């Protein structure tokens, strides 16, 4: 009984340790990685363009729903004028970073895990090692650095589009004065809200891209090599990244709220 409980726990601890070492090795490879700026730009372009449409679509619908629900609830208390504050604080502090990260995991993270898994499968990673090229430095480092830039940018875009969605449903559809809406937005958001937003976005970016890269990189360790191993690694990458985003969101919120 104890062994049955202990074995998965030890496996989990071992996996976390390996992933931490993998992430540290990827960052440690920064000074040794040649032509890093070029690969970084390429990674930013890939992550950014791949996710842009979904960020825009989910952002506008999230804002629209927030506007509708917020107006309905606030109207009960005669406080519709606070709709801008409700939409903006919900988006900046919570929904923006979390939903943008989940969308980025679904789009860029899954593609990354599959791509690196296939590269492991077709011996491209082994080829890099025989050339004396750091495979983490070449494949993972640019993606991790790109995530630190792309996730906050995409989150900012998500929040802006969401705010516009809230305006559309609150003002354009339900008749709230646009000035009242935008003025509440302006008054509600403080520097500490933006800090929380970008701390979350950066952390989610780093952790999820590290997780997706790690799962792809070690796709062969679970079920051996092959298409099945790559598909299992991709699924694991997406599920674990989503769980990590939600768990970390709770941890970061707890720390930042009680500063």
């Amino acid at each position, binding site marked *: 009984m104890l062994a049955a409980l202990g074995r998965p726990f030890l496996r989990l601890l071992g996996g976390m340790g390996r992933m931490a070492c993998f992430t540290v090795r990827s960052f440690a490879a920064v000074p040794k*990685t*040649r*032509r890093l700026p070029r690969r970084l730009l390429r990674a930013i372009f890939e992550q950014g363009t791949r996710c842009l449409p979904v960020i825009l679509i989910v952002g506008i619908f999230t804002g629209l729903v927030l506007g509708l629900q917020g107006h309905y609830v606030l109207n009960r208390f005669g406080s519709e004028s606070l709709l801008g504050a409700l939409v903006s604080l919900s988006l900046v502090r919570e929904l923006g970073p979390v939903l943008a990260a989940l969308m980025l995991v679904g789009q860029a993270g899954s593609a990354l895990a599959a*791509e690196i898994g296939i*590269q492991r499968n*077709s*011996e*491209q990673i*082994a*080829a*890099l*090692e*025989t*050339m*004396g*090229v750091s495979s983490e430095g*070449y494949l993972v480092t640019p993606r991790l650095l790109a995530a630190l830039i792309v996730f906050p940018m995409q989150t900012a875009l998500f929040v802006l589009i969401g705010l516009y969605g809230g305006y559309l449903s609150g003002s354009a559809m339900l008749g709230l004065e646009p000035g009242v809406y935008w003025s509440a937005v302006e008054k509600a958001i403080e520097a500490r809200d933006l800090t929380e937003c970008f701390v979350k976005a950066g952390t989610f970016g780093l952790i999820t891209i590290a997780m997706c890269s790690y799962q792809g990189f070690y796709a062969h360790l679970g079920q051996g090599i092959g298409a099945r191993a790559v598909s299992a690694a991709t699924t694991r990458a997406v599920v674990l990244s989503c769980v990590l985003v939600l768990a970390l969101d709770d941890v970061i919120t707890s720390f930042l709220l009680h500063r």
Partner: protein
Amino acid sequence: MTDSSEPLLRIESLHKRFEDNVVLAGASLNVPRGSLVTVLGRSGTGKSVLLKCLAGIVTPDAGLIRFDGKDLDASTRADFRRRCSFLFQSNALFDSLTALENVALPLEQTTSLSDAEIRERTLEALKQLELDAHHDRYPSQLSGGMQKRLALARAIVTKPELVLFDEPTAGLDPLRRNAVFTMILKYQRQFRFTAVVVTHDLDEALIASDRVALLDGGKMLFEGPPSAFTTSTDPVVISFRDSAAALRESVAELRQTTAAT
């Protein structure tokens, strides 16, 4: 100072096991400078593992590898990697990179050459392997033979002293097999690198190689020139050498039995 009479590569008593499966059980091999050595053996006898131990992809459990007079360990591995290339059975080309980018990759990542110098050396390598007209194509847009040549271009662009070939002719028809072996021999002579080729194609090995080795049961059962291989009286060498004749006999027996019934 390096002794020129010493083999470029010497493997002594290499051991490797994967859990209960003993793959190498004291394999030894000498690879003289400038030679083409072929390691023969049945499928699953550990030929590729031997090569991967050399390339550093697999860590041997015990044994010694000496390259250019120095033991291969963590301190000499980086120098070995600079001077050695590995050609994978699957070619291991980057499918998201063009032919030019694939060949330029080792130069970009391991040297401090300028972009112009890298491009010049890459185009030169592609030209020597008659691929310069296809430099902007992706590997998936090239034929199997062209992919093999592209992988060879990537392997030789760094001007290595030793190239390891892992089953370069596996899965190819006899004509393509001949073409690949001819290509290896041609460029080995042209660029004067030492080559270790792992294969189970006996005929090509005996024609093209300077030395032949036979790996069986985790050990090197034979090592010497092709002429000695053809006259060896070792029962395993005989069974490997005469496998085609044995097949002919088996088929003839089977036909006789079928006719009788």
